């Protein structure tokens, strides 16, 4: 692993973000809109249901957590797609970079992109709705870390598809999170899902993460087991995504995708 190369690729994307005001605005705009929208929905439910009576911020907190996941995953895909759109893909893959270095750099850059969007959203919730996500305490860190790993994992899986199948896989990049959202039990307990869907949902770390967030906020209890299971699933999927990325790189070298990418 070369820190110089990792830093070099990070710089490529850092320059891109800092040079373009619309890109910065885009990073901040959507989380802010999302949080504002759900803030009002949250306030409405708080006055009309008993479930959320004592925890006005549950939906809003879950919205922030989900948005972080969404931004991380899409952010990772965007970094990969930027290389294809700018026809820089070949330049990148003929540079003496190991796959591990490319992934590490994209993972770190995706984190910074997500934080640029997340921090203003968190800061807005307190003055607007009198809610602070920081009420989750130290466990907030573990929940964010878990979501970050899963977001990156989804990003790597989609990037593997882009490597293997080329730009035609782009649409999948945009739809992944929407496909998984119903199974993630982000805004409702898992019992809400039909039994068959519950079985699928239990195979995703999201259920454990959002269940735990609700546990803490509604019942003020912490289940380390949920966090542990979420991390275990995350590790499982993360390893699969890395293996798949290496496999896709090898397959792309056989198929010729790398040389035709962006054309």
């Amino acid at each position, binding site marked *: 692993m070369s820190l110089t*190369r990792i830093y070099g690729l990070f710089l*490529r994307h850092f320059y*891109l973000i800092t*040079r373009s005001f619309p890109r910065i605005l885009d990073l901040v705009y959507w989380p802010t809109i999302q949080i504002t929208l759900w803030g009002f929905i949250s306030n409405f439910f708080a006055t009309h249901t008993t479930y959320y009576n004592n925890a006005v911020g549950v939906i809003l907190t879950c919205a922030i957590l989900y948005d972080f996941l969404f931004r991380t995953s899409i952010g990772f895909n965007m970094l990969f797609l930027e290389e294809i759109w700018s026809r820089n893909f070949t330049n990148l*893959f003929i540079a003496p970079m190991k796959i591990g270095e490319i992934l590490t750099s994209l993972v770190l850059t995706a984190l910074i992109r997500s934080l640029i969007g997340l921090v203003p959203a968190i800061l807005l919730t307190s003055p607007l709705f009198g809610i602070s996500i920081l009420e989750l305490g130290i466990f907030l860190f573990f929940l964010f870390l878990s979501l970050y790993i899963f977001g990156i994992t989804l990003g790597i899986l989609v990037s593997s598809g882009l490597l293997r199948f080329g730009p035609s896989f782009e649409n999948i990049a945009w739809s992944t999170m929407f496909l998984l959202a119903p199974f993630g039990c982000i805004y409702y307990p898992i019992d809400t899902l039909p039994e068959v869907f519950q079985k699928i949902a239990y195979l995703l770390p999201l259920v454990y993460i959002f269940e735990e967030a609700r546990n803490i906020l509604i019942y003020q209890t912490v289940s380390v087991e949920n966090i542990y299971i979420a991390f275990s699933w995350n590790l499982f999927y993360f390893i699969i995504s890395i293996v798949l990325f290496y496999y896709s790189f090898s397959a792309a070298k056989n198929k*010729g995708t790398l040389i035709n990418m962006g054309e």
Partner: protein
Amino acid sequence: MKNLIEVQNIKKNYGNKEAVKGISFCVQENEILGLLGPNGSGKTTTIGMLLGLLKPSSGNIFINNLKLEENRIQILEMINFISPYIELPKKLTVKQNLYVYSKLYKVKNIKERIEYLSEKLRITELLESITGELSSGQKNRVSLAKALINEPKVLLLDEPTASLDPEVGDFVRTFLEEYKKEKKISILLASHNMNEVTRLCKSVLMMKNGIIIDKGKPEDLMNKHGRKNLEEVFLKLSRSENEFN
């Protein structure tokens, strides 16, 4: 003279289609070898294999005596590539792009290297410009600066002067001649510009349907085929049916 590129009987199949059918050639130090052939003859596939972007179905590639399959990173550190079909990130300034690639290639003395190439390629005044806003000729010189940022021993050029006006085209050719002479590098040049190939290349390979159908010095090929220039040789060979297959 040392061989910096050595290709041994490489083949590339895409399913049932044979894109390259077992070709071998060498490029010596301080030599420019021309790679000619009609579209679909296997030139791009061959270059892709030399860059490690494509895995040969069989055969071996050695760069500076290192086997590509086993020394990918080490080899990529000493080669580079320029093609009109790939570009540098458009939103970054020229200087930022060169700085990023200096980092990716772990260039020492980045500032001096960028200054040296900028001066040689006359892009000093473009360093703060947005890459996407440059003209074709300016972009070409910037891409060339990127391709030389790591002081490559081997340079692969795919249509390096395509879409350039005669003045810029001549500047690039002259620069390449002088740079090769000064640094003793090997260059593999794929081009459809026969005047360019005649001027720059010591010898050429003619490819068609995935095989090398002829090779030699440009003047020897002209004599052999009884044509007065390389373009006519190219037309004769590319239009011939089964003559060399």
